[in-house]
């Protein structure tokens, strides 16, 4: 079969089973799809679709980061936007106050996110579940105030908000200006991010978190240093959050604290829940889906000529649709899009059987 996807029944060695594309023709399919995708998208789509695509790619970076800490390590993080904000404002600050070049700013922004991530992880050593979620929320609020103050400081020092523009991003000598060039750049960066996290899930870290997800106490007694793993998870989430925020700032040429509110944190959480908790592909699906639909709503309103009546309410309507999406998925599809996809694949893989039975043969 040309589209024979990864089947758990076809591996013949551990290496094969944990490989990136387990035994199948999937590898070829994937590369083919990727090539087609990359080549066509920038040229076939309209400007708005391209900008959505770009924004989705940025979101993917943030989402995979969150997936590591909340999906894989199962530590509720309600403050993801704080990581993004840190990245965003540190970058802005680096530019205005220290005049650093972009290629230096991006890593620094990401690392600052990582450091905040690490700090967020510390409460995780003492708290669980809901309590932990609230501490991440607390950090979000605190960082929010800090960034607000910093934003005001920068504004008074260097001009009004509109003047806080970051320069064009220059990577390897190329100025990234057009949507298309952003697309390629972001594709590379988000591709690397996804690849990194996917590899994480295949590594010791992935196995450790899988154990911790099931029963933390047992994982600890098996020798897994739960504390270190949690800290790592938060640090990684912070890194990608910071990277996401930094890139977002460069993309929009400025940073504003409203872009990093609690709503945004929840949006990212919704992304990984809607996409599928715990699987890397889930973060991708979720990011694209949420960004896409939010944008779609705006488009429908403006294209449908309803700008007059509904215009000022756009934000409200977007929020409404977003909330309804969350609710629908939470109730009807708790495994998310990735879950649906797995079921579909499973159905075709096992057809005409309905399931694999594990009933013991009776004596």
């Amino acid at each position, binding site marked *: 079969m040309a589209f024979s996807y990864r089947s758990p029944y076809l591996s013949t060695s551990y290496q094969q089973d944990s490989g990136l594309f387990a035994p199948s023709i999937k590898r070829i399919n994937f590369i083919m799809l990727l090539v087609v995708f990359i080549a066509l998208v920038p040229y076939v789509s309209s400007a708005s679709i391209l900008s959505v695509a770009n924004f989705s790619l940025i979101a993917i970076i943030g989402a995979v980061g969150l997936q590591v800490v909340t999906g894989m390590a199962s530590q509720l993080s309600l403050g993801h936007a704080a990581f993004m904000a840190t990245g965003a404002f540190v970058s802005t600050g680096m530019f205005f106050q220290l005049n650093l070049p972009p290629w230096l700013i991006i890593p620094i922004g990401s690392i600052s996110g990582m450091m905040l991530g690490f700090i967020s992880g510390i409460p995780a050593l003492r*708290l669980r579940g*809901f309590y932990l979620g*609230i501490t991440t929320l607390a950090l979000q609020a605190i960082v929010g*105030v800090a960034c607000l103050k910093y934003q005001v400081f920068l504004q008074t020092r260097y001009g009004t908000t509109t003047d806080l523009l970051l320069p064009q991003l220059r990577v390897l000598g190329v100025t990234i200006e057009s949507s298309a060039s952003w697309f390629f750049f972001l594709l590379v960066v988000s591709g690397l991010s996804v690849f990194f996290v996917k590899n994480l899930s295949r590594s010791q870290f992935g196995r450790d978190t899988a154990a911790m997800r099931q029963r933390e106490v047992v994982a600890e007694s098996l020798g897994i240093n739960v504390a270190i793993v949690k800290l790592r998870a938060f640090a990684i989430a912070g890194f990608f959050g910071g990277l996401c925020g930094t890139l977002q700032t460069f993309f929009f040429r400025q940073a504003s604290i409203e872009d990093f509110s609690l709503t945004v944190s929840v949006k990212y959480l919704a992304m990984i829940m809607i996409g599928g908790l715990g699987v890397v592909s889930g973060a991708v699906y979720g990011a694209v889906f949420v960004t896409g639909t939010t944008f779609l709503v705006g488009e429908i309103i403006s294209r449908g000529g309803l700008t007059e009546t509904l215009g000022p309410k756009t934000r409200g*309507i*977007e929020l*409404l649709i977003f909330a309804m999406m969350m*609710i629908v998925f*939470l109730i009807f599809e*708790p495994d998310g899009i990735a879950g649906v996809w797995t079921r579909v694949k499973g159905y075709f893989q096992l057809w005409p059987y309905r399931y694999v039975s594990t009933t013991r043969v009776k004596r």
Partner: protein
Amino acid sequence: MLTSFIGLQLLPQNFDSPTSFGKLLLTFALMTVGGIIFGLGVYRYFIQPLSGTSRISIVLMTLAALFLLEAVVDIIWPGESGFMALPGTSIGFQASDTVYIRLFDLLPPVVGFVVWLALLLFYRLSRQGIRVQAVAEKSSLAARRGINIDHIGAVSWAIAVVVGVIAGMTIGTQSVVSTLIVGTALKGFTVALVGGLDSIEGILPAALLIAALEVATVRWIDQQWSEAVPYIVLLVVLMIKPWGLFGRTEELERV
């Protein structure tokens, strides 16, 4: 326990302004009744279907409900903010040389105290309240012993919404009503956690502590940082006492 606090903090209410005392009572009564119905509805359609799923899902669901309400409010009254004018704003008395207390300044603390006391008595002394605690601890055992879990959940949510309504109305008398009330509601979360999530007794000291620190910050540092104060207190307290100041430590496996 958990659900009632989540609900309590996450449902902002917004209203227009009545002006006379009579109208006020009527509005209040209406909102309370409406609140109960609304709370039951939320429970039935949004929370109940999720019973048995992970905590994360339920938290996200309440957040989704929050956004839903915020969105609806935003759509119906876009960008509006109002003020609930109460009669008797001018009545007051001189408490000391520098302090002049107006009658309506006393409203929040009095209302707050009454509500707190009512909740305390309900949860600690009444049979129904004890049942809620039992369900919060081990719902499977409660079900076996004939306690109707869905009823308990519905009651918790109804209480949460009503308290939310009261809170919203009280806030409305003190400051501007707008969607930013959500921020205040979130601060309520910190109070709940600092006090201890399963402890009603803890709420009062926690609230006083946080409020005092907030005001002190406004006075001596600045207003913006005071927004962060409740959260800073939360972090400090939770690091020292993970279950809150008055929480009972057996929360161990409540993930």
